[in-house]
């Protein structure tokens, strides 16, 4: 098949197709802009003079590495959003693909169409990354006062960086499109989705084991030797672990919910258990967000309890924590948006059963409660889990660092007790935020729900 043919067939259809394109492109633009910023920052000081109006977090080598890491980490929720967005309107799209198969396209060609479609959207997003980066620069490099600027002025070298990132984004977008598509088995007479994978597959098990071992050993190294250079590896391993385990968290949450009384819990719980991978990605992001929050809570608590006070440097610390908190907030918001996209899309797919439920006598408000429960059942356990993990980790590390002798958890017990209160406070705060987010999400989804239960959907097609 010619590329032009694939491009013709991949042109987004109205409605869900457009929505998918906009979401993929938007999230890709955001992620690419962050990567450009990260690249720009990591090249800082390698050549040419350094802008002295920049904040210490990017001027000092050690701190700069942390800032770069933060920027890279922020792309994770955006990438999760891209994956979710690639699934938007999948029912209609799969039907279209089945039509292509019926018309004589071989599976490889159908995959190519999917790849071209996703690659096109990601490519458009990659092009948009340039203006997105400029906006980022205005926000972080122009508006802040001298001494707190986080991004230096763009240089021609950034253009090269942009080109590299753009090409990479378009290519990985195409790859992601083909992979996401190949998860659904399309035959010419319709679509049979591959059954949700239950049980620990070897690949997932491998990821869990490697993730656990690497992050544990790495954390030990960080704690004992103060070796922060391995931190990126530890974080990567933790991410792998989080994404591998999160679907099980979702399945567990769904089963627990479904076991309770009431039709709402049953409907919400079974929905989660039926498609744990979508909600799982969001849960993973939220666990990471929660961990960051937990670490911060313990660090802030430590900072406040330093007996001799830090004087003028307190502001320095708090600005750093504030920045990190903003990052966490943005990531969590993107995660909730991802959840919204997934849930909204399911409403579209399940119009007929939902309209039948309404005809059966299920009130719209009941179905809205089901949606809310679907969000809270994932989001609250995920952030709370994350906060506890983050708080514990930070406490253990702090305990190690307290010790004069490396490798001994001398004050570990004490540090754990001390960390309990800030961790709990952060957990409560995060849970409340997620509860509010769920309400907000359910409110946003209400029009979609109303469309889904329209009696028009009961008509014999």
């Amino acid at each position: 098949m010619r590329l032009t043919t694939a491009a013709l067939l991949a042109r987004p259809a109205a409605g869900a197709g457009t929505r998918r394109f906009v979401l993929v492109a938007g999230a890709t633009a955001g992620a690419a802009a962050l990567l450009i910023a990260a690249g720009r920052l990591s090249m800082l000081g390698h050549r040419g003079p350094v802008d002295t109006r920049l904040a210490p977090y990017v001027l000092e080598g050690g701190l700069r590495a942390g800032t770069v890491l933060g920027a890279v980490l922020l792309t994770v929720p955006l990438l999760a959003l891209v994956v979710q967005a690639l699934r938007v309107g999948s029912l209609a799209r799969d039907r279209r693909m089945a039509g292509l198969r019926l018309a004589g396209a071989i599976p490889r060609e159908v995959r190519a169409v999917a790849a071209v479609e996703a690659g096109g959207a990601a490519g458009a997003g990659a092009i948009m990354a340039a203006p997105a980066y400029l906006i980022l620069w205005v926000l972080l490099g122009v508006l802040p006062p001298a001494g707190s600027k986080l991004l230096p002025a763009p240089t021609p070298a950034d253009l090269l960086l942009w080109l590299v990132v753009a090409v990479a984004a378009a290519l990985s977008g195409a790859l992601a499109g083909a992979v996401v598509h190949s998860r659904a088995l399309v035959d010419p007479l319709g679509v049979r989705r591959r059954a949700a994978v239950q049980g620990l597959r070897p690949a997932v098990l491998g990821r869990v084991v490697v993730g656990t071992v690497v992050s544990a050993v790495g954390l030990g190294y960080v704690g004992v030797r103060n070796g922060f250079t391995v931190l990126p590896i530890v974080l990567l391993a933790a991410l792998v672990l989080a994404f591998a385990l999160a679907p099980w968290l979702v399945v567990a949450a769904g089963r627990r919910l479904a076991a309770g009384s009431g039709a709402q819990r049953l409907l919400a719980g079974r929905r989660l258990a039926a498609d744990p991978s979508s909600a799982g990605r969001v849960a993973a992001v939220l666990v990471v967000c929660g961990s960051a929050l937990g670490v911060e809570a313990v660090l802030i608590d430590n900072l406040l309890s330093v007996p001799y006070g830090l004087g003028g440097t307190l502001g320095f610390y708090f600005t750093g924590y504030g920045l990190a908190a903003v990052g966490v907030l943005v990531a969590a918001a993107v995660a909730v948006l991802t959840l919204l996209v997934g849930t909204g899309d399911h409403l579209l797919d399940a119009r007929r059963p939902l309209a039948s439920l309404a005809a059966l006598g299920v009130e719209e408000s009941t179905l809205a409660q089901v949606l809310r429960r679907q969000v809270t059942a994932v989001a609250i356990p995920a952030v709370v889990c994350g906060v506890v993990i983050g708080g514990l980790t930070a406490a253990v590390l702090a305990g190690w660092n307290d010790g004069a002798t490396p490798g001994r958890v001398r004050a570990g017990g004490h540090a754990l007790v001390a960390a309990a209160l800030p961790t709990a406070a952060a957990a409560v705060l995060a849970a409340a935020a997620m509860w509010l987010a769920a309400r907000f999400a359910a409110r946003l989804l209400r029009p979609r729900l109303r469309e889904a239960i329209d009696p028009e959907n009961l008509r014999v097609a």
Partner: protein
Amino acid sequence: MLDLTGVGHAYRRTVALRGVNLRVAAGEVVAVTGPSGCGKSTLLHVAAGIIRPQAGSVRLLGQDLLALDEADRTRLRRRQVGIVLQYGQLVPDLSVVDNVALPLLLDGQRRAAARTAAADWLHRAGLDIALDSLPAELSGGQAQRVAAARALITGPRLIFADEPTGSLDTLGGEQLLALLLDPAHRLGAAVVLVTHDNMVAAHADREVRLRDGAVAHESALR
């Protein structure tokens, strides 16, 4: 039981119903027939209180449906009315037993009791399937019988069925109809069957034939 007077309804530009009168008595089985696009489904949706007609009045079980708000209409439907559609009405994520138990659960019954009742209804519907099978694992006939069990579990006084056998073969259709009409014969429930299939219509006590959104003729079959 059911009394529609002068019901009219239009979607955007197309007129679906014009001045339709329909009365259904307790224990009566009425077939609403007509070619596709004659307004059969719209009439059923109006009668069941799923949509509000733009003209006319609807009395369902002694209640003026147009005077009730959405929540009250929904509750009335949940407790007193059973509805079966042609296909695709089961919640795909729920097992068959939970699908059948759903109306009871929505009414606040305990899970165990609701599931027991649902299992009993599945048995009565002649379904020899695992209770925890998912709707996707059923044949068309099985899925329709599950849907019928779900519609009947509350002991409705009025049963609406919109082309219930539309996706079934003759034998499957007969089994389903026997299940749906049983409450009318034994308990005096009223049944409104919307169908374009004369074999199905022949099960009714009365035929109401629609043409272009109006009643073309009505005839007693008993």
